[in-house]
Structures are given as structure tokens and as C-alpha cells.
């Protein structure tokens, strides 16, 4: 539950950082307003169209649940048919730009996204345009967004993180779940394609995702990694597709530079600690005699998760045995010489 104070601050913040559009005051979007929109958009009788349905529960639980719909869809939606479209909705950076405060260094995220392979491919595609950007909302569905540390579990974070990429790198029909569930896994390819047709500023004119990026083909691109499905359940695409142990998951590299070294994850200083698990306090890392207990709580990962006491005991027993062998053989030599 969010307190009224948070709601008020949220809306004030949202309103403050949004540019006052075309002179009109942006409609305040809390409570009744959201309810007014949800009348049609919660998937009621009035709207059978799956692609405009928004699950009120997931929306309410999301980061922006406290901001009303009109915090982002500022004008043109108060009556139906609407006068505005989704394209006018602001990207995340509009409200969050330049803010480097932890835990999310947003300035860093923004520059990482700009340096990512997607933005670079896009720039090439869009040569001549001033600032074509691969938008945040191409990956993040704004209505259900949650940062990793607020997700229910690491498992959920992995699933949502991977679905983020799979939304484009797989054919939608190959994803599991109902239409409504699939919709939460933004952005749908259709959204990307729609962006192409809209020559608005900042619109993503992205090439149609080629078929060979479909899920199965994607699996075939990763044959060198054993048990691919097991890996995609315990690690995210961004773990491998962003640079080494850098604490970034947004600087997606050309595939030739992706992580191929198993030991990067399968070792004590696993890169997962710097990416997937980075929000978990360092005190939790080793606990109860288990190396990397935070990973261990979710998955057993050979090389990274270990029973420290077992190694301790075994190495010492082995050392003891070798010492005994040494003493024993020395004794035999001495005794033999003496007997002569």
C-alpha cells in the first residue's frame, strides 16, 4: 500500500518534471482519473480489445502505480474517442533523466542504452536523423515496471528480464502464457513495428525483427552452452550480453563480444554478483558456511556456490594424509638402513 503522501509526492514530481504541454495544465491523474480510464482499460465489457487492457492489480503494484494514467497520458484521453495516441506518452528518461542517485544510476543507464548495440544499429539505420534513440519503453512496459529489488524473487527477475529480450528476439506465439500475460512482456514486436510507421520525434524506426531471431533459432545460436534452458531460468540474457563484471545491464554489446567464458559465472567471484545479485547486501553473500549463499539460495552453480567447511575439511585431511605418507616412508627408509 502506498501512503497518500507518496502519491502526492509522486504526482508532484511527475508534474514538475514534465514539460507543460501546449499551455494547458496537465490533468491530475490520481484516484478517480485512473478509475475513469480503468472503466474501459481494465478489460471490462466496454473494451474487448486485448491490446489495450491493463491489469489493475499489476499496475497498482508497479513502480508507477501511484501516478495516475494522466501522469503520463497527459492530454487527449479525457473523452472517447481519444484525441491523442500512445506515441505521445513520454519515455522514462523524460522524468528520470540525469539522476545519478543510487540505487539506479539513471544517467549511466541512459548513456549505456545509447552505447548499446541496438542504439548503434538504429543510428546506422537512421543515418541523417538528429537523435534516434532506442527507447526505454521498447524494453520496459511502463505499466508494470518494477526494479529488480522490488520483484518477488530472483526467479521472477530472471523471467521478466529474459522476457524483455524475448519479446523481440522470439516470435510472440512461442512465448508461454495467456494474451494478457504476454502483453505485460513489453514491448511487443507489433509496438516496435508501429513505431516505424510514425515519423514522430524520437519514434523508433526499427527494422522488422528477422525471423532467425526466433526463440528456437536463438537457442541454436547458443548451442555451445550446455543446458541452455536451465541457464535461461537462472541467468538473464543481459548477464552475458553486457561487459564483464561491470555493474551494467544496459550496455548491450555486439554479439561477438558477448560472454563466452563459463568461468566468468562459474567461479567464486561470479559475475552474477555484479549484475543479477548486486542489490543484495554484501553481508548476505557468504552465510552459514556457504560460499555465495545468495546465489545458493536460488541456484546451485558449480564453481561459485560451495560448502566452505567441506572444502576446508577435505583439503586438510588430504594434507594430513600426505604428511602421514611422508613420515611413514621416511620411517621405512631409516628403519631399513638401521637394519642393515
Amino acid at each position, binding site marked *: 500500500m502506498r501512503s497518500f503522501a507518496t502519491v502526492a509526492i509522486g504526482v508532484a514530481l511527475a508534474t514538475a518534471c514534465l514539460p507543460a504541454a501546449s499551455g494547458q495544465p496537465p490533468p491530475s491523474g490520481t484516484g478517480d482519473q485512473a478509475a475513469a480510464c480503468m472503466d474501459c482499460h481494465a478489460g471490462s465489457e466496454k473494451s474487448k480489445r486485448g491490446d489495450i487492457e491493463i491489469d489493475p492489480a499489476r499496475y497498482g503494484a508497479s513502480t508507477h502505480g501511484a501516478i495516475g494514467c494522466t501522469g503520463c497520458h497527459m492530454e487527449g484521453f479525457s473523452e472517447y474517442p481519444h484525441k491523442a495516441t500512445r506515441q505521445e506518452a513520454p519515455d522514462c528518461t523524460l522524468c528520470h533523466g540525469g539522476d545519478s542517485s543510487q540505487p539506479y544510476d539513471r544517467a549511466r543507464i541512459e548513456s549505456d542504452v545509447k552505447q548499446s548495440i541496438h542504439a548503434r544499429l538504429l543510428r546506422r539505420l537512421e543515418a541523417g536523423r538528429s537523435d534516434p534513440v532506442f527507447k526505454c519503453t521498447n524494453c520496459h512496459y511502463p505499466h508494470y515496471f518494477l526494479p529488480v529489488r522490488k520483484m518477488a524473487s530472483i526467479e521472477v527477475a530472471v523471467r521478466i528480464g529474459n522476457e524483455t529480450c524475448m519479446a523481440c528476439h522470439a516470435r510472440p506465439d512461442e512465448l508461454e502464457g495467456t494474451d494478457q500475460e504476454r502483453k505485460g512482456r513489453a514491448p511487443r514486436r507489433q509496438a516496435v513495428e508501429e513505431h516505424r510507421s510514425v515519423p514522430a520525434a524520437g519514434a523508433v524506426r526499427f527494422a522488422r525483427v528477422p525471423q532467425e531471431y526466433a526463440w528456437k533459432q536463438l537457442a541454436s545460436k547458443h548451442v555451445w552452452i550446455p543446458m541452455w534452458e*536451465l541457464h535461461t531460468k537462472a541467468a538473464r540474457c543481459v548477464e552475458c550480453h553486457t561487459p564483464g563484471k561491470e555493474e551494467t545491464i544496459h550496455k548491450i554489446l555486439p554479439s561477438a563480444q558477448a560472454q563466452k567464458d563459463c*568461468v566468468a559465472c562459474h567461479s567464486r567471484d561470479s559475475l552474477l554478483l555484479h549484475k543479477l545479485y548486486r542489490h543484495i547486501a554484501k553481508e548476505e553473500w557468504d552465510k552459514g558456511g556457504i560460499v555465495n549463499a545468495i546465489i545458493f539460495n536460488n*541456484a*546451485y552453480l558449480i564453481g561459485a556456490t560451495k*560448502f566452505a567447511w567441506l572444502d576446508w575439511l577435505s583439503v586438510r585431511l*588430504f594434507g594430513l594424509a600426505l604428511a602421514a*605418507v611422508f613420515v*611413514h616412508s621416511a*620411517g621405512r627408509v631409516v*628403519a631399513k638402513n638401521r637394519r642393515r
Partner: protein
Amino acid sequence: MNNQGLYLYPLWLRIWHWLNAVLFVALLITGASMHFAQPGAPQLDFRTARLVHNTAGILLTLFYLIFLGGNVFGKNGRFYKLEAGDWTPGLVRQLRHYLLGIFRGEPHPYPHSAERKFNPLQKLSYAAVMYIAFPALALTGWVLFFPERLPERINFMTGTGIPGTAVFALFHSAIGYVLSLFMALHIYLGTTGETPFTLFRAMLTGYYNGRHAAGHGAPAAAPPASVPSSRV
């Protein structure tokens, strides 16, 4: 018996023994190099290690099944059958020999013969290794071969439980440690023959040319304390 010594180990058995040895060492090295994987460490490449470990594990299981079949259907099982007197005085006498007698140059208490290939210590430790430890190691290894089929969490006393893989990995590595320890001692005890090389040579050529107790009253000789798998 001929002038080369007592022919103890037929060719197939020696091949079987040394293949086992090579596979076990390969498993030990690759297992350790995955367990202690570190970037930049002088280790086997992780993928190679995994491949070798899996292959060696499968082959070793196969060899073990041959051994088991031989023991159940063949005559070899009798060497492993425990008898009255194996623990006391057998084990006690054998241990006493390694701790005391060997320094005094005393003869081995259980000299080698075609009917009794193992001394009590060998019999007990080989039986434990071949009938308990190795099967457990192989079984946990095979389970770890299919991590995606394992329960995600296994609940013991704790609330959230621990990953299914971890339970088997714990036993697998613990038994692996124990067997490596066994192997180290096994190799060392292999030097306790007439000369440090007598028993190794026997395991290579098949001929045991130390002193033995084959029928006549020759002084007792050291049974090859090595090679658990040599007696099929």
C-alpha cells in the same frame, strides 16, 4: 609359477585396472578444476573439463557394471566376501604391520596366495569402496547429469530449503574427496612390496616376482596393497 614369478594379473585385468586409474584421475582433475574454477588460473578450460568429466564418468560407470557383473556371475566376488576374523584379528594385525612390523622388517601377516588375494585391510577397504562409495559417487554423478530434472528446492528442516542440485553436489563432492584420499593411500601402499616398485611392476607385467606363499613354505610376501579394481 615360472621363472618370471607368479602370474597374478591377466592382461584384460591389467588393462581394466589402468583404464580405471586413468579415468579416475581424469575425473579428479576435471572435477577439481570445475569446483575451484577461477578466471586466469592454470586450469583446464571449463567446457573441456565438463566434457571430459562427463565422458569419463560414463565410461567408469560402464567399467563398474562389468566389475559388478563379474562379481555376481563370476568367481571374483569371493575375494571381497568378508569372513570371521577379518576385523579381529585380521584388520588389527594388518594395521599393526603397517604401523610397526614394516619398520622392523617383519614379514607380511597375510602373504599372497592364489586363494587369498587381499589382506584384511584390502578386503574391507575395497569392499567399502567398490560396494558403497563408488556406487554412491556414480549415482550422484548421474543425477547431476540431469540438473533440469531435479526439484528446484528440497526442504529439510529449513523453511526455504536448498536447491535440489546442491544436495547431490554435496554428496558427490564429499564422496569424491574420500575416494581421492583412498586413491592417494592406495598408491602409497603400493610401494610397500619387496622393493617400492615390486607391486607396480606386477600390475604392469602381470608377474609378481616378490616373495609369496604359493603352496610352499616360502617367507611371506607383501600382497599388493594397491589396485582395488585389479581383482576381477
